[in-house]
Structures are given as C-alpha cells and as structure tokens.
C-alpha cells in the first residue's frame, strides 16, 4: 500500500490524459463541448474529493466556490483584465473564502458542518441573484469571451477543449503530488482520527483549513474556466442543489479515491446528455425518463454496498490507497 497514487494509477492517469488528447477527433461539436464541461466539473469535484474524501470534512457549499470563481473571472475579464490574470485571482479569492468557510469546521462536524456550509452556499447564491449592480442578478453576465494564449485564439470549441484538458491535467497531477506528500498522510490522519492526530503533533486546525482552502481553490479555477466555456452565467448553476450534485458525484465515483471524480462526473454530466441524444422508444425512452431516479438509486446503492463507489467496483486498476 502506498500513500497517494500507486504505480498503476500513475500509469492510468497518464494513459487517460493521452486518450483525452486524441478523443475529440472522433467527436462532433456538441461532444467536444460536453467533454470540456466534464473536464471543468472533474477539476471542481477533485476539490470536493480532497476536502471530503481525503480530509473527511463534509461540505454542502462546493457550488458556491464554483460560482465565485465563475463570476470573478467573468467580471474581471469584462472589466478588461486578461483571463490569465483573472484565473489566479478567482482561485485566490476562493482560497480565502475556503479558509473562512473552514472555520466552522474547527468547532463543529458532520451534519452541523453540512448545515454551516449549506448556509454559505445559500448566502452566496442570494448575493449573486440580488446584487444586480455587480452580478447582473437573474440576467447574469452575457457574452463572456474566450481568451487567447500567446496570440493563439482559444475561441473554437476544440481549442478551448484543449485548454480545459490542460487545466484538468495540471489539476490532477498537482493533486496526485499533494496526496503523495506528507500532507496526504496528514489529511488521512485528520479524517481517520483527529483526536489521535492532534496528540501526535498534527495541527488539525491548520490541515482542516488547508483542506477547505485547496478544495475551494480547485472549485474556483474550475469556475473560472466554466464561465468562458458556456459564455453566459447566471446564478442558477451555483444553487446549493449543484453542491448536492457534486457531493453525489464524489460518492458515486468513490469518495477518497483518486479517479472517483472522473467517473462520478461522467455519470452526472455525460450520461444524461448521452441518453438524451439517443433516439428510439422502449428502453431508451425509459432510461431517459427515469435517469434521475436511477441516479438517486445508484447513490443509495453505493452507500450501502460499495462505499468505494464506482472506483471501488473497478478493482485493482482503480484502487487507491484508501480501501475504507
């Protein structure tokens, strides 16, 4: 057993990245767009997986960070700033917000923490909806331009897909290195047994705040890419229901498992779109109509029979260092 990723998992990660480099050549415009969305959402879910899966801190406010990142990048770009400056600014803003939201976690745990983070999400959502002078309220922010990099325009769907893929690659490898460092072990210690951890000199306050801050940072930079990807944002995708979706995606994929978000977000975002695209009656129609019910049942089934989620079911190749 190794801390962080096993050798097989590093190989799998690199293989997945190469596959993702090549796959758009087989896809139509819509498919490329969906895959870009998947990349962005996986990065955000990586963040929640770190906070919740690896460090054991429940959060029902992840969509708020995603929203703060999206609005920060959109508004800063609208104000004339380069996207490549707006991106780190959005990340840092979420990092700070993550530390602030982490403070309740120093006092309360479990369902109390769930409600505290949910409250934060509602607050952010109301701010996005009501503060029209800044956020445009329900009308949102329109015509968010895609950036260019070193004079190369990323406006095309394929070009922006590769930008999203680059984000996913950097975010994934950075997380893998973080989990393999002593920090990964400290997060696991915090999740498994905070009282024991503290008695061994592990500063559980600092690591709790770090888990929230880094998780929020991931959501923030994902949000910063989400805005130019979709081109128009309003408060609706950052409602706390989206936080529940992130939570379910992490659980279905496998909480505390490295490839959990890849699978969970695929089930959450790609599967329904694929089902919608299918034509024909009978079983297809049933699958389309009952998708959400199926997803809910899947969450239930995972919690009862496979706490490791889909990654747990895939066995050795997907197994991370967290068998429980």
């Amino acid at each position: 057993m190794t801390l962080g990723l096993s050798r097989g998992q590093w190989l799998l990660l690199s293989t997945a990245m190469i596959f993702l480099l090549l796959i758009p050549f087989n896809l139509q415009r819509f498919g490329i767009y969906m895959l870009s969305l998947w990349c962005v959402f996986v990065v955000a879910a990586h963040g929640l997986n770190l906070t919740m899966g690896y460090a054991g801190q429940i959060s029902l406010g992840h969509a708020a960070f995603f929203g703060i990142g999206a609005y920060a990048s959109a508004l800063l770009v609208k104000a004339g700033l380069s996207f490549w400056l707006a991106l780190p600014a959005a990340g840092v803003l979420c990092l700070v917000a993550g530390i602030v939201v982490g403070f309740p976690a120093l006092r309360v745990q479990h369902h109390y923490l769930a409600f505290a983070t949910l409250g934060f999400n509602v607050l952010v959502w109301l701010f996005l909806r009501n503060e029209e002078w800044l956020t445009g309220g329900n009308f949102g922010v329109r015509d968010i331009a895609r950036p260019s990099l070193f004079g190369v325009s990323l406006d095309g769907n394929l070009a922006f897909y590769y930008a999203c893929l680059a984000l996913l690659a950097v975010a994934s490898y950075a997380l893998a290195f973080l989990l393999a460092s002593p920090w990964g072990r400290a997060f696991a210690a915090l999740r498994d047994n905070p009282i024991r951890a503290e008695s061994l000199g592990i500063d559980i306050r600092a690591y709790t705040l770090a888990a929230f801050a880094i998780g929020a940072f991931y959501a923030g930079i994902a949000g910063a890419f989400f805005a130019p990807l979709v081109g128009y944002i309003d408060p609706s995708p950052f409602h706390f229901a989206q936080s529940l979706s992130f939570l379910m995606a992490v659980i279905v994929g496998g909480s505390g498992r490295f490839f959990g978000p890849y699978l969970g977000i695929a089930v959450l975002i790609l599967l329904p779109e694929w089902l919608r695209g299918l034509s024909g009656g009978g079983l297809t129609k049933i699958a389309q109509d009952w998708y959400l019910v199926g997803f809910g049942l899947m969450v239930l089934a995972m919690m009862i029979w496979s706490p490791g989620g889909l990654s747990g079911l895939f066995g050795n190749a997907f197994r991370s260092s967290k068998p429980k």
Partner: protein
Amino acid sequence: MLLEVLNLSKRYGAIEAVRDVSFSVDAGEIVGVIGPNGSGKTTLFNCILGQTAPSAGEVRFRGERLTGASPLRVSRQGIGRTFQSLQVFGSLGVRDNLIAAAQEFQGSMAGRLVMDSRAGLGARADAMIERFRLGHVAALPAGSLSYGQQKLIDIAMAFMAGPAVVLLDEPAAGINPTLVEELRALLESLNRESGGERPTTFVVIEHNMDFVMRLAQRVLVLAEGRLLAQGTPEEIRAHPEVMEAYLGG
C-alpha cells in the same frame, strides 16, 4: 524534575474526579498509576495532556508551566501518549501510521508539501516495525489488523517522534498474556536505551497488577480522585489502605 503535577483538581459539577493530586516524575523513571475504576486515572492523564482543562492546580514540564495547553502544544513539547481505546489511523498502512506519528516534527508545514513522501522517516519507521515485530503486516491497513496488533502500533506511534515522556493508558488491556510479557520487555528496553540521548520516561496507567508491579519503579495509587499512596511496588503491596481500596475490605 521532568514532569510535575501540583495540587491538580478536576470537577464535573458536583463530582470531583481528581482532588488535589501532586506528584513528580524524574527523567528516566517508569511510574505506574493504579486505582479502582472511576478513581480518576484517565481524567488525571487528560488534565496533564491538555484534553481537558483542570479546575485547579498546575502542570509543569521541564520547569515550564503547561497547564491548560492544547493537546497539540503538549505533544510538540515532547510528551507522547496512548489512549485507553484503540487509536490508530485505520485506512493507512502500518508504516504510514508510524510516519504520521512523527512527520509533523520534520521541517515546516510548507516544507512538508514538497518533502519526500516518507519525510525522511522511512528508516526509523522500519526500525520500529522490526522492534514491535510488525514486519509481516507493515504494508496492510492498520484497521484490518487484530486488536493486539493495533495496540502495538498504537504504542509504537507514541515513540516515533522521540518524546521525552510517554503517558500510556492501559497498554496491557485486552492483549494476550504472551504479548503482555513482550510488551513489558519492549517498554523496559525503550526505557533503558539512551543511545547517546536521554532515556524515555513513562507514566503507565494499568489494571494488570502483575504487569505494572514488575514494570514500574514507583507506583501511585489513586482512590476516589485522591492520591492515596505512592512508593516502590513492594511498599504498595504492603500498604494496608491500598489493599482496602482495592478489595473494598
């Protein structure tokens, strides 16, 4: 004087769990703490270790006041502990449990972000694994092991960072007699071993009389929160009040 406890009391409402207890521990000593259930042994430990704040009194470590310090600060000062119940990191491997127990003493928090995964503790962890005879399970998740093995890991973890004093809460409870003997030999060797450094000092709460009387050089007896007696194991065995407290006679 390494560790001093002065007039320590802990009150929970009308109940006085610890009443005016004073004692001191010298470097290199093994001190046993015995007493019937509910006599305040664990509460006394928790007051010393920052888990609960004492109602009155003082704790001094190396002459410095440590009363009311957080468990984190207590551990950073060089005081290790084990808990009465099992306390390992269940999902982590045995080796990772041991490294987790000492990594925070290596460099700064920011530095550990870019540090090698084992934080330079691989060799020390392996030596501890060998010493506690956990080699055959070293790579398995600690939570999957037997109670006795987890107990050994728990104790080994308390030594990883090289503390000056370790407070053990019932280390021999629930493990088989052969292992109890091995554990005693291990603790004695850790106590004797100076290796150019200071020896490890122990304070041990224990119900297993045979174990504690053979291990400890000095024994404290608590009854109803008070320090009833202290002395060598021989003196304690001959103490009439102690016999009465234990046998209720």
